């Protein structure tokens, strides 16, 4: 009997028709080739940290857990090619061994590297991009079961599509990344009143390498997090805040933290200048309407503009706002209600989190939407990598007959 698949928060459950764990590229290519000729579909899963049904399938689910390790390293260019199944934590350690690092990280490192790239995962810091920005090439198996190499030098357009691809262009087997020299950071966490934090927001974002805050809706207090190079962090002061925690270490050790308490989350990207107004409106609405059942936090982060076709920060410096709700409590009414505000501010959803947008809503938000779809069609003309959710999300159907 097939085992039920559950995502991290427990909000998604399904039983795939079969789960495959190919051991190499050839085996994966054959698997996709067979699936294509049998009219079946294939979805690749990472670590199951997404809560949108991107990987949900009743057909073939592929795990890339056997694709591990560094394939190639070019020290001069600071380039590394890794096999695609590496977990983010494992990749961070491997990069550090080579004296390298990703320029930024999100809140946890328990995702797979390829899964994090697949949904445009990001950290915070106005000068730093989503993690996918490091991607400059790699290899994938396309919908015909062909192994395709896509170096930036030859096909920069494809790389921009591949940087946030939702598993719709193919199954990546190798990722080529341009990294930065390894670095250490000093992390501090502060408690303050939200109004003091908002009044000082521009300075906090400007003066800290990484800054974000959590607002707690039932007290109006905020947890501020600052990360700076240790030698530069002496001058950081937040006079109205109380420092409650601090630590130093390599970036991969101090940016991600443990998250034991399970939650569901919705997150949207906004033009940076709209962030404070949007946050204030969300805060007002949460206090007026949702405090009865919502006790957990709202997170505010910043991200630099990039040019990946489906990136939330495509061509605009961005702020993200995300809502958290304990996974044992209802989230739907809360998330839907606040999503209206997010949309009024031109918000683009985080692909890996909850949202209620469909192709018709999404297309106007992404200048390169149609181009992405053309490349998807080229890579996977018969829709081997589509599931019902992706078909609706992207507005493209399968052309092959469904497996009976």
């Amino acid at each position, binding site marked *: 009997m097939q085992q039920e698949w559950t995502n991290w928060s427990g909000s998604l459950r399904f039983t795939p028709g079969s789960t495959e764990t190919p051991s190499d590229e050839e085996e994966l290519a054959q698997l996709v080739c067979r699936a294509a000729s049998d009219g079946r579909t294939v979805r690749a899963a990472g670590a199951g940290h997404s809560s949108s049904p991107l990987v949900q399938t009743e057909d073939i689910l592929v795990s890339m857990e056997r694709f591990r390790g560094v394939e190639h390293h070019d020290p001069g260019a600071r380039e590394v090619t890794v096999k695609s199944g590496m977990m983010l934590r494992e990749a961070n350690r491997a990069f550090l061994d080579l004296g390298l690092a990703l320029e930024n990280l999100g809140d946890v490192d328990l995702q797979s590297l390829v899964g994090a790239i697949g949904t445009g995962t990001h950290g915070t810091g106005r000068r730093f991009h989503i993690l996918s920005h490091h991607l400059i090439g790699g290899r994938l198996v396309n919908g015909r079961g062909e192994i395709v190499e896509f170096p930036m030098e030859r096909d920069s357009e494809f790389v921009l599509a591949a940087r946030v691809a939702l598993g719709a262009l193919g199954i990546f087997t190798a990722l080529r990344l341009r990294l930065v020299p390894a670095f250490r950071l000093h992390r501090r966490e502060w408690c303050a*009143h939200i109004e003091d934090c908002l009044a000082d927001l521009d300075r906090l974002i400007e003066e800290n390498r990484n800054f974000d805050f959590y607002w707690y809706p*039932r*007290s109006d207090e905020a947890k501020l997090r600052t990360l700076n190079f240790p030698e530069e962090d002496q001058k950081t002061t937040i006079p109205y805040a109380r420092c409650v925690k601090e630590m130093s270490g390599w970036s991969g050790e101090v940016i991600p933290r443990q998250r034991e*308490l399970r939650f569901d989350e919705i997150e949207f990207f906004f033009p940076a200048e709209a962030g404070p107004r949007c946050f204030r409106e969300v805060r007002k609405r949460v206090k007026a309407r949702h405090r009865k*059942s*919502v*006790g*957990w936090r709202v997170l505010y982060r910043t991200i630099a503009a990039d040019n990946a076709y489906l990136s939330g920060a495509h061509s605009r410096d961005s702020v993200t706002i995300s809502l958290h709700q*304990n996974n044992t409590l209802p989230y739907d009414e809360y998330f839907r209600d606040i999503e209206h505000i997010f949309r009024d501010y031109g918000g683009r959803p985080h692909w890996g989190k909850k949202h209620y947008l469909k192709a018709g809503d999404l297309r106007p938000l992404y200048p390169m939407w149609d181009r992405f779809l053309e490349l998807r069609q080229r890579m996977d003309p018969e829709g081997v990598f589509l599931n019902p959710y992706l078909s609706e999300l992207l507005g493209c159907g399968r052309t092959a007959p469904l497996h009976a």
Partner: protein
Amino acid sequence: MKIIGRTTWAIPGGRIPLNSTGPEPDFTSNEELCILNAGYQDAKVEITVFYESRDPVGPYRITVPAKRTRHVRFNDLIAPEAMPLDTDYACIVDSDVAIVVQFNRRDTSRAENALMGVMAFPVD
């Protein structure tokens, strides 16, 4: 050596007021647990919350260091889950060492604040 307090306490009459008046967090309507640990060992405290129409939720875990007091707002508890406001609840407070437990309610729904403080019921 004198032992001050008990290890199990009950509070039957909880209901966190929904609305607040005035600047927060000072004037947030809240219910609060005040725990005194007068002993020489840290107290590992577990709170289980009971509702009218669903199974109990918990434990919410708090440590109260030796010779210290801790005041915890029920409003702020989020692990394992945030408690609903404006909903009847009761709770049992269990500790591995003797503690003293008081329960306070501050209701700022109207500008005229209402304050109430009672001792929890010592069970053992």
